[in-house]
């Protein structure tokens, strides 16, 4: 008898609504997985909350981003005015937009912390290499979200940051100018760039992110939580993911919502001046904090080093850093054998310290600033 025979159908008709739904959707497998999922408890357990926090902040960005779409208009003539309208006229528009802007910064910060904790706990070692690689790619996507979203209010700061940011790839020999044209939607940063960045910010990046985030989360579930090398042999005790860990996660999310609302209320995100393509770049121009170290590095590069354009060397340097970051699990032979890799830790600390110093230098007032 087939499984969809009349007897089975009759039996299904007698089920309670909940059982009927369960029978149709088949969520028993998911419920079983959730019940089985456990989180190791040791001195570094707190760091496990960073991933969930990043996911939560991402969802806040999705929700507030969708709300902003209802009023935002992507063109050089209307972008600035529509954001001004959201901030000044739309009820709670200031709240939604400020949460979106603050949330973006918090999100990038948490993603960086999440990555640093995974790095120093060596959670990327076998068999979790693909989880790390998908995570680094998600960080690059987060930076892409930041860069593309920054232009959308069409203010002076964003205009010049985008001019510089889209001129950097133009330095690559051969395909550079084409890349820059594709990014800008023309040879200059104009209204065409706004439409393009808008499409990238609200459709292309979200689509790629959804896919990659799905892969990342499935991998995390499949491989379970990694424990640091120092804990590995000791059989740490565990806590249930549902409800114990999840409830603690939610406490963190509640605090994050409070923080975002507080920041939005007391430090609403500024809009600045409307972009004026025929005005000089104002003094003190700089990008978002997570690009400051690169920005400062570009300032120190001379025009030419050994006959090679300085900018090109800069691009090669950052490209190499990005490639190393992606390939850390493959390159770190010690960790892949389950041994400590102190040299990788030192290298990472030097890189972090360098980025911090450059960021600090970028925050100092520019030496050539004209006194008003």
């Amino acid at each position: 008898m087939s499984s969809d025979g009349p007897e089975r159908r009759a039996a299904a008709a007698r089920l309670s609504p909940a059982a009927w739904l369960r029978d149709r959707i088949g969520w028993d497998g998911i419920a079983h997985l959730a019940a089985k999922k456990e989180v190791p408890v040791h001195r570094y357990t707190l760091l496990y909350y960073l991933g969930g926090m990043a996911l939560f902040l991402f969802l806040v960005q999705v929700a507030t981003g969708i709300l902003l779409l209802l009023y935002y208009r992507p063109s050089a003539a209307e972008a600035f005015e529509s954001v001004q309208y959201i901030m000044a006229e739309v009820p709670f528009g200031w709240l939604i937009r400020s949460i979106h802007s603050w949330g973006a910064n918090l999100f990038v910060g948490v993603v960086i912390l999440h990555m640093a904790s995974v790095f120093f706990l060596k959670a990327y070692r076998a068999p979790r290499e693909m989880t790390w690689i998908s995570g680094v790619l998600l960080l690059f996507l987060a930076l892409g979200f930041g860069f593309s979203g920054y232009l959308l209010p069409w203010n002076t700061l964003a205009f010049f940051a985008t001019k510089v940011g889209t001129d950097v790839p133009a330095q690559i020999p051969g395909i550079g100018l084409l890349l820059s044209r594709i990014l800008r939607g023309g040879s200059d940063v104009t209204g065409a760039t706004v439409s393009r960045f808008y499409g990238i910010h609200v459709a292309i990046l979200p689509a790629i992110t959804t896919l990659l985030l799905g892969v990342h989360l499935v991998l995390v579930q499949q491989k379970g939580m990694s424990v640091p090398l120092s804990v590995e042999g000791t059989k740490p005790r565990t806590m249930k993911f549902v409800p114990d860990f999840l409830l603690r996660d939610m406490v963190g999310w509640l605090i994050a919502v409070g923080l975002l609302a507080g920041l939005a209320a007391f430090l609403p995100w500024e809009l600045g001046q409307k972009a004026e393509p025929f005005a000089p770049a104002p003094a003190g121009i700089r990008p978002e904090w997570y690009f400051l170290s690169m920005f400062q590095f570009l300032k120190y590069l001379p025009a030419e080093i050994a006959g090679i354009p300085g900018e090109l060397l800069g691009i090669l340097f950052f490209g190499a850093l990005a490639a190393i970051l992606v390939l850390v699990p493959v390159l770190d032979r010690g960790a892949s054998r389950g041994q400590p890799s102190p040299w990788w830790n030192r290298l990472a600390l030097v890189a972090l310290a360098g980025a911090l110093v450059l960021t600090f230098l970028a925050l100092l007032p520019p030496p050539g600033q004209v006194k008003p």
Partner: protein
Amino acid sequence: MDTADQEHSRRRWLTYLLGTSLGASLVSFLYPILRYVVPPVSSEPSLSEIELDVKASDILPNSGRIVPFAGKPVILFRTAAGELKALSATCTHLACTVQFRGDRSDIWCACHNGVYDANGTNISGPPPRPLTKLDVAVRGEKIVIRRA
């Protein structure tokens, strides 16, 4: 050749045909998308000369302003000696718009602290090349800028 071999080679032939036609279809889908993504080259206004709505006497010694020329910013300034000059205002480093600094009689890019002298020569910071010079003339009261 026995039947199994014949079958095998026929299958390989079919797989090849299927593979290449799928590949060709994919290329035919991707090609228009790639072409679509690259913006068309707009015919740049081929202006070689414009008359500005600016009086020559409005530009005081040791001051300057940005004016549009064929869709690009141009910096128009008067040196302390009274000479009117015009240079491309697009920084040769990473394309920010430069400004004239009256207190130092030089041209400065705020983005990465690049400095040019009043002739447009890059003198410090990251700019790799000088700013392009333009000719300035005064016709009656009005200023005329022209490609050098």
